[in-house]
């Protein structure tokens, strides 16, 4: 080969090599720009879900668009990866060659996120669906509606209404936050739930009889009962036995961590007269700072660690769930950092047992035996969050104020209120049926609405909720309604010949009001009260 030919050869191969470098550098620079967030991510449609995407891009483009903006899409997790089902699953059906299920339960999410699923499963959130048999639910099912369908009063022009669904308030109200017990329609006309299916540890039904009763449409797809679906309540009781719905906070189909980090996300449920956490937060300095400094919160950060990625303001997630720089990882059990439960009529310290249930035993030795995670541990975890922005002196003094407040509420109003209602019930001066007497509504307002508002207000530093929407109304309800109504019932009982029960209630009230903290009310204290 001549020198000239070799020169051409070297030139050609050199240009080929440099040309390949241009391609490589172009792809490398593009990839780096995507990683650094300077260019939109290139989404490749996973082969497993390509046909789903093609079809649903026309039928429901919003779903595909949301998914394309998700981390799932970036990581190659498509439709089938989440919706895949085992053919033995009760809600599985064949859909263009794939066995899928409509509802994605925490058991499905746990295939890739086992740690998060486990943390969530032991949280109070996961058990939100169990309210379906509680006092609050009686209110919605029976007081607000009716357990059985009933006839309409008159025709509804334009719509044929021959029967009223008395459970409508529960379905659209309670269940949307707390979660429904997911049900399939049965061929026999009733519902099929997890109770009928008795699923094994893999979530597959063991009761063949219930399985045989599942009603299916013309495509052989099991029909979900409209009373229980659609539903993304946080404590949803799923057909596979798992509890909860990850999309309650992580909104499908983009499952945005950014959204889950913002207070508005929690406000779907945590607002309103009985637990206005969102409004309380808005009033607090934390909420004010968030609104002002929202743009500096680095909400898109991959890990979103307080003290590293941001410090401007906390959100609900910051204090109750997120990772921070003092060696604490993100948790999906918000109860891990809460030291008082302000949900029941009387606040309890959050010592929890091995099943993560709040211990209500009063005997110290018995409590000690049951404690798996103490309230002090929980508070210490929360303090680690607080200490990012506050001194320990500040944090400890806050907790002293908070403890004093809750204990004052417990001792001055909650326990006495509970004692008065118990005395009335013991003497059979009120019925066992809830909400059929005025004093039951009074007591419910006192602890469930005003008492909670006061306690939550104190816990999150919102003085207006603590006082005017809280303790002021608690006091008003207690002195101006509960006491007079109880006395009226007792007086009426005595007049009707039931003197023993009437006097017992009077004695209970007298004992409460004779205590120094209530003496002002009756004008019984002739001498000024001594300071504690």
């Amino acid at each position: 080969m001549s020198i000239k030919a070799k020169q051409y050869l070297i030139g050609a191969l050199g240009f080929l090599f440099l040309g390949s470098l241009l391609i490589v550098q172009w792809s490398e620079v593009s990839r780096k720009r995507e990683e650094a967030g300077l260019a939109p991510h290139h989404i490749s449609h996973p082969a497993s879900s390509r046909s789903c995407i093609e079809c649903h891009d026309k039928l429901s483009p919003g779903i595909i668009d949301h998914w394309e903006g998700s981390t799932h899409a970036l990581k190659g997790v498509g439709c089938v990866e989440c919706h895949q089902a085992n053919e033995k699953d009760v809600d599985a059906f064949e859909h263009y060659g794939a066995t899928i299920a409509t509802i994605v339960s925490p058991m499905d999410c746990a295939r890739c996120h086992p740690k998060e699923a486990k943390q969530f499963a032991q949280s109070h959130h996961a058990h939100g669906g169990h309210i379906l048999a509680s006092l609050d639910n009686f209110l919605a099912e029976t007081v607000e509606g009716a357990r059985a369908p009933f006839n309409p009063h008159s025709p509804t022009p334009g719509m044929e209404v021959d029967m009223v669904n008395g459970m409508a308030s529960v379905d659209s109200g309670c269940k949307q936050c707390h979660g429904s017990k997911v049900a399939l329609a049965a061929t026999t006309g009733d519902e099929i739930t997890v109770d009928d299916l008795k699923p094994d540890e893999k979530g597959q039904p063991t009761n063949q009889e219930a399985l045989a009763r599942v009603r299916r449409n013309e495509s052989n797809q099991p029909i979900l009962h409209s009373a229980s679906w659609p539903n993304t309540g946080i404590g949803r009781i799923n057909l596979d036995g798992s509890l909860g719905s990850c999309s309650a906070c992580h909104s499908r189909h983009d499952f945005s961590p950014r959204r889950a980090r913002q207070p508005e996300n929690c406000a779907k449920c945590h607002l309103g007269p009985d637990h206005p956490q969102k409004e309380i937060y808005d009033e607090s300095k934390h909420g004010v700072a968030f609104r002002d400094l929202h743009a500096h919160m680095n909400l898109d950060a991959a890990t979103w660690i307080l003290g590293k990625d941001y410090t401007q303001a906390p959100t609900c997630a910051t204090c109750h769930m997120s990772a921070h720089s003092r060696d604490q990882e993100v948790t999906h059990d918000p109860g891990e950092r809460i030291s008082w439960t302000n949900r029941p009529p009387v606040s309890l310290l959050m010592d929890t047992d091995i099943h993560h249930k709040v211990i209500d035993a009063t005997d110290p030795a018995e409590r000690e035996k049951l404690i798996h995670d103490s309230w002090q541990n929980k508070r210490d975890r929360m303090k680690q969050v607080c200490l990012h922005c506050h001194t320990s002196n500040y944090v400890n003094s806050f907790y002293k104020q908070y403890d004093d407040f809750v204990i004052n509420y417990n001792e001055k109003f909650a326990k006495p209120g509970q004692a008065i209602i118990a005395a009335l019930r013991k003497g059979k001066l009120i019925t066992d049926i809830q909400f059929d007497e005025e004093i039951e509504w009074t007591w419910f307002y006192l602890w469930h609405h005003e008492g909670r508002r006061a306690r939550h207000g104190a816990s999150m530093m919102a003085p207006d909720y603590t006082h005017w929407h809280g303790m002021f109304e608690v006091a008003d309800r207690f002195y101006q309604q509960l006491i007079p109504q109880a006395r009226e019932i007792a007086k009426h009982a005595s007049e009707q010949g039931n003197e023993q029960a009437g006097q017992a209630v009077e004695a209970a009230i007298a004992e409460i009001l004779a205590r120094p903290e209530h003496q002002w009310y009756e004008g019984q204290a002739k001498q000024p009260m001594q300071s504690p």
Partner: protein
Amino acid sequence: MSRLAMWWSERIPISGEQLRELTNEPVPNHMKKWWFALGGTPAYLFVVQIVTGIMLAIYYQPASTTAYESVRHINEAVSYGWFFRSIHKWAATLMVAAVVLHQMRVYFTAAYRRPRELNWVIGMCLLLVTLGLGFTGYSLVFEQLSYWGATVGGNLVDTVPVVGGSLKKLLLAGNEYNEQTLPRFYILHAAILPVTLVLLIGIHITFIRLHGVTELEPGVHPKDPSKHFNFFPDHLLTELILGLTLMVLLSSLATIFPAELGPRANPLETPEVIKPEWFFYATFRWLKLFGPTFAVLSMGLIIFTMFAWPWIDKVLMRMTHNKEISTYLGIVAVFLIVGLTVWESLVAH
């Protein structure tokens, strides 16, 4: 002679004439073509790397707890930090490319043949040290791909029979990536490998000065003035023009495509796409095609073959009676490397 000149010549007893004599190696006319100046290009880029590397080292903190933040600080807070980091990154890329191009020129012009076999071996060592500098430098950023690249590198070394485990421990300072790994990479990148490179370049140039530049025209006498031109200042000026062109190219690349910062290394989260730096794309594709053990052993064999090529070439020529056999094999090898590199570049996983 003035007093100053006398003072000077007494202390440095070398005259301008002698200096010209020393540097004025007669350079064959073919060196006027730019692609024959590719030996000086990586050397020039290496100087750029030393200067920018020292500037980055002023701010860089070589510990897994601080490295990423210090690179972020360089990128975002230090005046022109992003520019010097980008120059350092692009000069590394161009340096590897220039070394490969230079090696291709030497290979296809058969400049490695007798008596220059040993200089080819030195050149191979220069290539490996340059790749080593690229690998360790890439790992210092402590972003996700740095961490996982180092982990994959460690696992690859581990598959070498017999000594693999010990080599991995030596590389990573333990059985897996730990807090000692990054400082070790830093020492390699900023001290051991550059010093090795300087020594090797010294030997490489000494060999060139001893043998003279390879004569491509058969029958040309090295001292025939009609076929040669002076190294000083003629060839040096060519190199200077090349150097200035490189500076313009580097500044443009650094400005248009500045070095970005990926996500911080997270040992708990494997990134969806793991890719090494581009100069390992071919080997990475090879690895994916054939699995670790075969790939590592075959790459070891390929590297050994490259080192021993001057002697293998001799045997092949004797066996085939074809003087151009190495040219044909070389064309196949270039296509293979370019093909594997582009393939790996274009696939997502």
